[in-house]
Each structure stands twice: as C-alpha cells, then as structure tokens.
C-alpha cells in the first residue's frame, strides 16, 4: 500500500516535470504553440465565410479539435514510446523498483495535460476572437467533455501499441502516421460528409468528430450527418468498445515491451542513431 502510493506520487511528479520541461525552452514553446496558433489563425480567417447557413470556421472547428487529439494520442504517443525505448529512458525506469509503473503513469499524465492544453489553446482563443461563433451551452460542454475523454481512451492505447511493437522511432512514426491519415480522411472530421463510406463508422476518429460536431454545431446541421441526426448512444458505444479493447490489449503488449527492453537493444538503437546521424 505504502509503495503503491509512493509510485503513484512519483508517476504524477514525473509526468508534471516532463510536461513542463519542453515547454520551458524557446524551441519547445514555439513547437507547442505552432499548431494551435495556426489552427486559430485559419479559423479567424474563415470566420465570416458562410456555408450551410453558418460560419465556415465553426464547421471546421470540430475537425481541428479531433485532428489534434488523434495526432497527440496516436502519433505523439507512438513516437514518444519508441524514442524512450531507443534512448534508454525506459531501461532506466526498468532498473528502478516500480519504475515501469511510474513511467506509464507519467506518460498518461503528459498525454492528458498535452491534450487538454491543445484543446484550450484552440477553444479559448476562438471564443474571444470570434465572439458568437461558438454558441455552446451546458449540455454542449458536457458532451464535449465526455466525447473528448472517451475518444482519448479509445485512441491512446492504439498509439501505445504501435510505439511498443515498432523497432525504431522512425518506424513508429511511419506506422502511426499511416492509419492516422487514413482515419482522418475516412472519418469526415474536416467536412460533414453524408456520402462517407459506411466503413468509417467502425473507427474511433469518426465518432470523435461526430461527437464534437454534435457538441459544437447548431442542431440543424445534424441533417448533414450519416442517418441525418446526432447519435450520442452510438458514439458512446463505439468509443467505449475501442477503449475497452485497447485497455485490455495494451497492458500485455506494454509488459512484453518492458520485458524485452535491455541494454543490448538500446545499444543497437545507439548504433542506428550514430550511423544515421
């Protein structure tokens, strides 16, 4: 009990430190702000252009938020895990009592904080620079919150599994970008497509987009969706199914990765790195 409390505290502390370390450098700060600032600029630019009876910027907003979460949960997680394996961070964690558990807790903390930060960095400026653009009520906020949380749980384990099974960070990046691109394109998060292939309804990114649209867009736009209405029940069920599957699958694969992490593997990574660099 005492050691469990200790390791949870250490995981949280480690995650907090790791979240701030990159942001507190000029380079890291610019990197963290680049995407949100670009997205907000695009939204601002299109705020007066109308489509479907509402601002084009409003139509784009749910897609942008979905894209950011998918990017963070899939590509970001996969790459960070592969990098930490290669550079020995994971091996160090393994050499400490309860180190792996603390490491994983820290990872979750960093992803949650980053995802929330990205969400806020887009949503809050939009509320200020284009007042009246988003007319979101209490129900809308609640929908936004649960869709975001559930989609996070559905997508992140996929990123973790990719990061755990790939041999090198480059491979992890490639393998996570590929489904990410396909998912984003097939999920209609950048445009409400009634003509989307039915297959996209299998993927969590589609339901993330759908859920966020239902939270942020006016009621009348539901007619553009597949089936012509908002489908909160299906959204919850599909995302929960992915989350359950991912959370059942990921720990075993992460444990296998942890077991196989060794100095020799890291040495191979170091050789790869020095040869290519």
């Amino acid at each position, binding site marked *: 009990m*005492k*050691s469990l409390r*200790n*390791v949870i505290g*250490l995981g949280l*502390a*480690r995650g907090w*430190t790791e979240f701030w*370390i*990159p942001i507190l*450098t000029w380079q890291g700060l610019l990197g963290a702000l680049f995407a949100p600032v670009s997205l907000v600029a695009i939204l601002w630019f299109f705020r007066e252009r109308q489509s479907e009876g509402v601002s084009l910027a409003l139509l784009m907003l749910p897609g942008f938020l979905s894209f950011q979460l998918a990017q963070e949960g899939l590509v970001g997680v996969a790459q960070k895990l592969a990098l*930490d394996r290669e*550079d*020995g*961070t994971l*091996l*160090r964690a*393994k*050499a*400490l*009592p*309860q*180190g792996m558990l*603390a490491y994983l807790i820290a990872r979750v903390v960093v992803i949650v904080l980053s995802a929330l930060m990205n969400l806020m960095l887009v949503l809050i400026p939009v509320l200020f620079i284009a007042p009246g653009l988003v007319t979101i009520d209490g129900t809308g906020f609640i929908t936004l919150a649960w869709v975001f949380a559930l989609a996070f749980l559905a997508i992140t384990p996929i990123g973790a599994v990719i990061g755990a099974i790939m041999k090198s960070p480059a491979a992890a990046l490639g393998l996570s970008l590929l489904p990410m691109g396909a998912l984003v394109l097939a999920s209609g998060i950048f445009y409400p497509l009634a003509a989307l292939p039915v297959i996209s309804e299998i993927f969590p990114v589609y339901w993330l987009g759908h859920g966020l649209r239902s939270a942020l867009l006016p009621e009348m736009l539901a007619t553009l969706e597949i089936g012509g209405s908002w489908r909160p029940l299906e959204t919850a069920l599909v995302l929960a199914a992915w989350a359950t599957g991912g959370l059942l699958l990921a720990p075993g694969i992460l444990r296998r990765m942890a077991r196989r*992490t*060794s*100095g*020799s593997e890291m040495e191979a990574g*170091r050789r790869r790195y020095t040869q290519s660099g």
Partner: protein
Amino acid sequence: MPNKDTAIEVTGLQMRYGDHVVLDGVDFALRRGEVLVLLGPNGAGKTTIIEILEGFRARSGGSVSVLGIDPEQADEAWRARVGIVLQSWRDHSAWQVRELLSHFGKYFGPYSTVERPRPIGTDELLHLVGLTDQAHKKVRDLSGGLRRRLDVAIGLVGNPELLFLDEPTVGFDPKARRELHDVIHRLADMQGTTILLSTHDLDEAEKLSDRILILAGGKIVADGSADQLTKEFSNQTEVIWTQDNQRHVHAGSDATTFARKLLAQHPEGISNLEIRHASLEDTYMNIVQTHEANSKAQKGDTQ
C-alpha cells in the same frame, strides 16, 4: 540453500539464440563484499551474463541466484537491493542533475531498512561521485566523463547491496577513468558494496578487482586474483640487464637460475638487473589464444 555470504551463484548457465551458443555452461559464485571483474574479448558473452543477472534477459538454461533470488522471478523489493549502472547517452537530457537523482532516489524510500537506509541523500551522493558543482546543470550539458559519474550515482542511489557495471569506462580519457576508479574503490571500501564489473581493459581489471573471471567462447576459462592468474597461467619471465651500455633481454621460465649464472659469469659490468614477471596482459593473451586454438582444434575433430 542460498548461503547468506553469497551474493551471486551461477551454475551451468546456458544462453542460446537458435543454433548460436553465447554461454555454454558458466559456473561461478561471488561473495558479499567482493569486487569481481568479468574479463573477455568482445562477443565473449560478458554483457549477456550481466543482463541475465540483472533480470533483464531470460536465460536458456542453468540456475542463477542473485541475493538469494532467481532474477527471472524477482519482485520490486529485490530490484530495490540491486544497483545497475547503465550507459546513458540521450535519456533524461533535459533534467537537472540534482533533480533527476533526487527523483530516482524516491523510488527506494519504501524499501529502506535499518541496516541499509534508502535512498542515499542526494547531496551526499553528488559529493561522493564529485558532481556537486554540476548539481544544477542539465544532464545534456555534462561531458562524457561527468555523465558516466551521474550514471554511477544513479546506480548507487538506492544504497544497493550489489552493484553491476557493464564496461563503465568505455570512451573515457585517462583522467576520467582514474576518477571513476577512485569512486569504485571508495564504494567497495566504505559501503562494503558487492560489485560485479565487466571490462575488456586489463589495466582496469587489475586495479579494481579482488578476483577476475576470464570469459572466452561462452565459458569461464580462468578464475582468480590478478596475481594468481599471472602465476598459474604464465611462467614466463623476462630478465633484463645492461652490460657495456647495452640493454639485454632474456625471456624464459628459468629467471632465477639464469640470473645467478649471469652474475657468476660477469662479476663486474652488469647493471640495472631486473626480473619481470609476465603481466596480466601477457597472461590474458596467453589464456585467450590457447582457448581459441583449442576450440578450433575441437571443431576440426568433429567435422
């Protein structure tokens, strides 16, 4: 039954990857408080042995006991008793030295005992490895030698009963090497830490070890102190002297007899007489070459 005075016991250790045999029946034991150096050419299996003992790698066969427990079945409490010096290169590069060491120390708090308080205080440890002035530097700003000292400090932070160091001074300049050797000596003397270290640096092995194991072809081919090994495996000596301003060398196993005769024949004119035993390097080359020749001959027989 595991003996209380035994830190490591290895019997019939086997490691195979498919048909490739890396370790072929390794046996040895390590007493508590002993400093054992694993010596061998590259690819002899030193790192494999250490990773098996650290619990980082599953063996193919044989039995292994580290601090009384099989590392493959070891739990987090066992992990807290073992220190591992890893070779860092990029990990945690943005952390501050003191911040990182203090964070890692906290993992060991729940495993503290009266005999072995855990963790070691961060400032005390920084002082021990000579990093006090760098406490607030970022890890990435340390030179290679200072960084390796941090690696040692991280390995020590849990006040381990047993410390593993796999080739700790690779890529060091002589000064950094000397300084790390001093730290290791201090540990062994003051804390009574049991140390298992691998290297292919003979000078390092001779300086640090209580005992040396030489590993070749997946087997232990010699086991003893540097002195014992030199005496047991090599009776070669050199007699060196100066006569008429000329330096002479005689190599052979008959140094004493030779020197007596030499002095009897030339009652005057001999100076700078010196009898030199084979160095550990000569011994090592001798052992490894003999072993390699034998294994080649064996392969020839079976083919």
